[in-house]
């Protein structure tokens, strides 16, 4: 598979950092090129890059790819060009932020397209949306993006998904929100940790104060003022900590406000360090005791800095919202937003109790450790299969929507409702059961991964007609001959494989075989695919089918007997040092 991965590559972009790690992991499975949408100073990467912001004509080359992936975040300079590129070819949109209002407002207003901004606000949020945007443009009210609450009320994420085949986000909460707004497949992936920071190595230098650390762009969403007020109120606690605020943004009003407050309150343990390089951030992170990661309302899908803090075993203090809520209790300290007493109690406990910090940090590392970029890559490929399986549905709905738009239809018209209702009938139930179908050349990658996944004794103990390898996958998908292979798919993922073999070798009676993904045993998929496959046999020119089963596989034997297979041969054998019996069964299908 050839993938075009659209991303910023700026050293100032968290999405760029994510992309360089994830794309490298994906490169183990497919050919992946980075399509770079910003002209900032770039991170280094061994992958091939195309800087299309300089040369939009390059986008014609997208036709050569099997999949396009667009990373969209809430910043025009990094993501505006990527949004424009996404209109060239439908693909998967990875949404890094819950609101993209700032991205689109800046993108359109910066290009002098105020009317487009107003039209889209009306199309998505009705008359009220249009009027609110107009008030901002005419300076009668502040810009929407300056208020987190309003940015979430008018997130414009729907715009990022126009024409998309699928979406990916990094928390269940975010996925749920998106599913309410968009009909296509939404994948819920975990944000990986990158292991770029050294592990816990506090260098106290004789200072026995507890080090608190807040990382990232300094803005009101990070609730730093709340921590300062808490320390101001509880001077005894303030004396026991040093609080480092690391990140750009101090020059803005909120940053200035924080610095002023700190000076006026005489909070000598608080330091604002501004932007720091990755190396310095890593060192400070290693030296810290508690990471204060309070964000409200949650604007990001998840937080890369949170994952980094968890992975290296830091105790993290966060609000119980968004992606933070999904970190297991015990691996993070969560408090309800707005409950200042609970926040103070939690912070005090973490400052005073080193053992608690250690136990929370250990649980955090255990949770985040397995969330590697490699695992992320595999989960992403599963999502790509799901998206591929939904593509005809999404394209149909989009096509209908395009036609209605051309006709000037608005969402409230009966015709739009009628078309929507009909499409619901077409597609409403289609994922209630696995899709069953013949395998073709396009299934080779999925089949290869299926065989590799199931090359485990639990499966191969009973099923061994061929090696569970990529070579076998290629043979089956590309050169099946007269033999037939069928698959059961759930959300686009191959979960069972059945076969009718023997015709290639000249036999009149085919041999039936089936293997169900080890992770999907016990859900009736094997029975369903068995029935499906046997129903095809008469259509393939045979009136009889045979199979081989081991006596030790009693469950399978009973399933076949229930389906009318009769035993015609039984021979003792030894398998893996155990005595067993090889049973041949036959079923007449006339």
């Amino acid at each position, binding site marked *: 598979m050839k993938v075009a991965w659209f991303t910023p590559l700026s050293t100032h972009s968290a999405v760029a950092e994510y992309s360089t790690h994830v794309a490298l992991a994906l490169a183990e499975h497919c050919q992946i090129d980075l399509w770079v949408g910003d002209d900032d100073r770039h991170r280094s990467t061994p992958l091939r890059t195309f800087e299309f912001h300089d040369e939009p004509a390059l986008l014609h080359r997208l036709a050569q790819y099997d999949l396009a992936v667009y990373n969209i975040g809430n910043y025009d300079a990094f993501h505006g060009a990527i949004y424009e590129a996404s209109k060239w070819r439908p693909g998967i949109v990875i949404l890094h932020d819950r609101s993209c209002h700032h991205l689109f407002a800046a993108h359109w207003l910066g290009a002098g397209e105020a009317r487009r901004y107003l039209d889209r606000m009306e199309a998505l949020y009705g008359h009220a949306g249009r009027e609110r945007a107009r008030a901002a443009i005419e300076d009668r009210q502040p810009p929407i993006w300056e208020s987190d609450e309003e940015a979430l009320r008018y997130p414009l994420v729907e715009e990022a998904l126009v024409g998309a085949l699928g979406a990916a986000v990094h928390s269940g909460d975010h996925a749920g929100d998106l599913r309410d707004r968009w009909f296509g497949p939404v994948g819920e992936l975990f944000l990986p940790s990158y292991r770029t920071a050294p592990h816990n190595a506090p260098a106290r230098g004789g200072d026995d104060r507890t080090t608190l650390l807040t990382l990232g762009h300094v803005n009101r969403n990070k609730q730093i003022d709340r921590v300062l007020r808490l320390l101001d109120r509880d001077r005894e606690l303030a004396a026991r900590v040093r609080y480092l605020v690391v990140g750009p943004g101090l020059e803005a009003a909120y940053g200035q406000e924080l610095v002023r407050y700190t000076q006026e309150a005489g909070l000598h343990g608080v330091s604002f360090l501004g932007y720091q390089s990755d190396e310095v951030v890593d060192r400070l992170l290693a030296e810290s005791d508690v990471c204060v990661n309070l964000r409200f309302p949650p604007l990001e899908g998840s937080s890369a800095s949170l994952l980094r803090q968890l992975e290296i075993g830091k105790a993290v203090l966060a609000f119980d919202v968004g992606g933070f809520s999904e970190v297991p209790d015990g691996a993070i300290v969560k408090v309800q937003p707005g409950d200042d007493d609970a926040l103070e109690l939690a912070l005090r406990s973490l400052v005073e109790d080193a053992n608690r910090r250690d136990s929370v940090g250990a649980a955090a590392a255990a949770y985040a450790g397995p969330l590697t970029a490699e695992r992320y890559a595999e989960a992403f490929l599963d999502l790509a299969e799901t998206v*591929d*399986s*939904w*593509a*005809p*549905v999404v*394209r*149909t709905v989009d*096509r*209908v929507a395009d036609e209605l738009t051309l006709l000037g239809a608005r969402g409230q018209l009966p015709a739009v409702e*009628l*078309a929507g209702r*009909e*499409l619901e*009938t*077409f*597609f*409403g*139930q*289609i994922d209630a059961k696995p*899709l*069953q*179908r*013949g*395998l*073709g050349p*396009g*299934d080779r990658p999925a089949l290869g991964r299926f065989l590799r996944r199931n090359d485990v004794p639990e499966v191969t103990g009973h099923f061994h007609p061929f090696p569970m390898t990529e070579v076998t996958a290629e043979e089956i998908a590309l050169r099946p001959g007269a033999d*037939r292979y*069928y698959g059961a*798919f759930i959300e*686009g993922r191959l979960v069972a494989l059945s076969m009718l073999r023997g015709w290639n070798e000249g036999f009149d009676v085919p041999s039936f075989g089936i293997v169900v993904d080890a992770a999907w045993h016990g859900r009736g998929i094997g029975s369903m695919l068995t029935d*499906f*496959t046997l129903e*095809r046999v*008469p*259509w*393939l020119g045979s009136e009889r089918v045979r199979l081989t089963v081991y006596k030790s596989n009693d469950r399978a034997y009973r399933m076949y007997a229930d389906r009318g297979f009769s035993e015609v041969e039984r021979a003792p054998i030894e398998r893996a040092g155990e005595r067993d019996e090889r049973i041949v069964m036959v079923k007449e299908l006339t």
Partner: protein
Amino acid sequence: MKVAVLTVQVPFVRGGAELLADWLTENLREHGHEVELVRLPFRWNPPRAVLDHMLAARLTRVRPADRVIATKFPAYVVPHENKVVWLLHQFRPVYELWGTPHQGLEDGHEAARVREAVMAVDNAYLPEAKAIYTNSRVTSTRLRNFNGLDSKILYPPLRDPASFRCESYGDYVFFPSRITSSKRQELLVQALAHTRSGVRAVIAGAGDLPEHVDSLRDLIDREGLGERIELIPAWISEERKLELYANALAVVYPPLDEDSYGYVTMESFYARKPVLTCTDSGGTLELVEDQVTGRVVAPSPVAFAEALDELAEEPALAERLGERARRRLDELDVSWETVVETLTS
């Protein structure tokens, strides 16, 4: 009564279903109804085109009609409060042909999604009809098995059955049909190579694809049967067809799991000719009964050859079976009067 006959049309393709829609329209008019024949365009490749056609059909309205008679997928999903369905067959690629070489849709997620959507639509909208009739027991059985829906059989008559005649039981068997793999013309060729009687064959019909005809011609050459088989790879005139029926020893029609008895069968019976078919031919078996109205044999060249020799060596047997076949039609009450009355009542 204002009647809208709804069917579908793959542009520039005509077959039995298109003829039936024409004949139904004519006969409804002859019975005094005001009739519009509405042909919805249809194609199934790429598979996603099926989704477009289903939606288009569902959004189509024929309200001025007092009665809608729909015959094919997806015409029968057009909504109407007074709709009857006379089902010739469902969208076979997603039902009995799915997962077989006859599927006709490229394997992949797209076709699988389309399949599920078609079944969802059939399940949701076929029950809207006041009544569902089918053209055969096979179609009714499939509808019951795949969709759990009951239906009644209403056999389609020929346009002009009186034109068929019998003049003799000659020295050839006649195989009139589209030349395509599912009709199995090659089975007759292979069987002739095994016969001892020297019986001849006339194979007539347009090829679905040029390669079907080429492949059949190659087979005839390979078997050295050029002298005994007359291959006419085109639609023949009605007059020529009637003549070939009239003087044939018997008619050969062994399709693979046909969904109806097939016009060929009925035409043969009107011409008093027995039909040679196979145990796996599906709908033909509703009319063809072994040693009563024809021969039903295993789909193998050897079994087929034996049946051909038997008829060639004893033309009186062909005549006896042919006469019985003609009487069988009277028993079935297949007529346009019955069809029109059933579909408009």
